[in-house]
């Protein structure tokens, strides 16, 4: 009897330990990636590296300035297309979507949010590249399609968190529903909208596969919408398997720049959401307190 009980206890301990080991195993790659990218990427970075354009191996003053600019342009154009569509889709689903069409939109948003980005790159290719060739706008279009479901889902969540009493108060004052949505609901869910947008930007900043199919890459300072454009992930991909040490170093430097951008965006989002969650809990608490006082 005693040994049976102690065997169960040991089983319990071993299982708990195994679960903890799983967490640690998963964190090994994360820590290793961060350390490697910093230790191999930092030596590559200096002023010329960040401001010069990419040149072939051995050329002095080769840099990733044009790739940084290209990535910024791609993300900017993608946001200009993707954010309005994503936010308005989210508004529809949250405020008017309590019917079969709203449920359909939601269903496909969830599916699209997990969709292979290479297929989305193919969409952009067949729509735009077949007409005007590899170009900035086709890359931005692909990234925009990736952004839309992310932004729509976060917008929907943010607007659902706006208390119904606000909607009712505004409608009771005779404000039409569309003005209620625009002035009261969206401005109350504003911080949620911002975090959604930042998340979507962090996500597309690192996208590579769709860019191979659409914006292709460029060694020169190119900003035209219909021209191929450089991007950080493309520099990493093309140089990673290069036999030349200086190009490999360039890949690591670009990786450091890219991972800094993406991770800091993610940390900012985390801080914003935590603040909002606290606020949300505070509101809920006073509400409960008020309720108990009334009773």
């Amino acid at each position: 009897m005693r040994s049976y009980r102690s065997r169960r206890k040991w089983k319990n301990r071993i299982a708990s330990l195994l679960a903890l080991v799983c967490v640690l195993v998963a964190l090994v790659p994360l820590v290793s990636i961060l350390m490697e990218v910093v230790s191999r990427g930092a030596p590559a970075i200096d002023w010329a590296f960040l401001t010069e354009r990419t040149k072939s191996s051995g050329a002095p003053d080769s840099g990733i300035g044009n790739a940084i600019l290209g990535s910024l342009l791609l993300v900017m154009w993608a946001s200009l297309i993707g954010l309005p569509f994503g936010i308005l889709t989210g508004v529809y689903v949250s405020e008017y979507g309590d019917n079969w069409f709203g449920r359909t939109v939601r269903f496909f948003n969830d599916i699209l949010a997990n969709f292979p980005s290479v297929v989305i790159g193919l969409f952009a290719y067949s729509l735009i590249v077949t007409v005007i060739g590899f170009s900035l706008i086709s890359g931005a279009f692909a990234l925009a399609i990736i952004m839309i479901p992310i932004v729509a889902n976060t917008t929907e969540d943010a607007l659902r968190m706006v208390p119904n009493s606000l909607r009712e108060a505004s409608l009771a004052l005779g404000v039409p529903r569309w003005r209620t949505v625009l002035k009261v609901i969206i401005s109350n869910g504003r911080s949620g909208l911002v975090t959604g947008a930042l998340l979507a930007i962090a996500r597309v900043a690192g996208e590579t596969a769709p860019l191979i199919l659409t914006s292709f890459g460029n060694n020169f300072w190119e900003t035209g919408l219909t021209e191929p454009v450089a991007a950080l992930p493309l520099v990493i991909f093309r140089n990673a398997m290069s036999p030349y040490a200086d190009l490999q170093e360039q890949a690591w430097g670009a990786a450091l720049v890219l991972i800094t951008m993406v991770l800091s965006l993610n940390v900012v989002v985390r801080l914003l959401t935590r603040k909002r969650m606290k606020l949300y809990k505070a509101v809920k608490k006073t509400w409960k307190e008020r309720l108990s006082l009334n009773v």
Partner: protein
Amino acid sequence: MMRPTRKHGSRRSRASLEDKLFKYSVMGIAALVLALLWSLVVKLVFDAQTSIETFGIDFLTSTIWDPNRDLYTALPFIFGTLMTSAVAIVIGVPISIGIAIYLSELAPAWIREPLSFLIELLAAVPSVIYGLWAIYTLRPVLTGSVEPFLMDALGWTPFFEGAAFGIDKLASGIILAVMIIPTVASVSKESMMAVPDSQREAALSLGATKYESTRMAVLSYARSGIFGATILGLGRAVGETMAVTMTIGNANIISWSLLDPGQTMASVIANNWGEADGLMLSSLIEIGVVLFIVALLINVCARLMVGRVMKAVPMTGGGL
């Protein structure tokens, strides 16, 4: 007396007209996004027409990919996708379930949130950086110790024949396992946390240890959620492009050995894009259509299985 009433009425009808206008324009935008995507699918099928007509059903069952003879079929890539995804699931899912159990059942409250955030950060690292890391850091570990060990221990199976080269299906599978962990762990954790406390308490009050209550109450209750999470992870592994392209070795062959290079549906597209034209381009697009159908089926299954818990998929992310 009449005038104000009439005026009031007209203002109200204007407001309701504006309301309708707003509602339908927002709805129109949502519809437009959906319609655009589905019309693009049709356009893709149209672009793949040459390949579909040339190869017919052989495209899915024949194993030749030969640019010199202008013959292109997809079976080696479907096979490669299945192999690498299977490795990813076999390695990644047990670890993810362990993480989910730790985060939902065992961890002290103060550490839960920071740990979940760290796990989700795994999804934030861009795929191309995973690839870079795999080439320079994971590969020496694989060639130095992991693959020789596997060849010694399991060399008698068909899966571990060949040389320890480190750029092969095993490397891709391991990288994919790391990449699906945040998805599978987060969704599993979410469905475990949805298990009512009364279930745990019932088991504990009968004298069960934490391990037994987790196994009997939590895991059996959250089973469908965990299964859905696995399917979601599979969807991610199937469509993942860059990290696989950089680690799989790009060989258009079918080989059961994980130590041989291969090619997946996604990686063959990424690898051949710049150079492809004509029939080859059309075939690559057809592979994309096949990938689209597979990903669609997987994601619809997962969505039906886990419902809106699917939203727990970390949207942090550096992209694929």
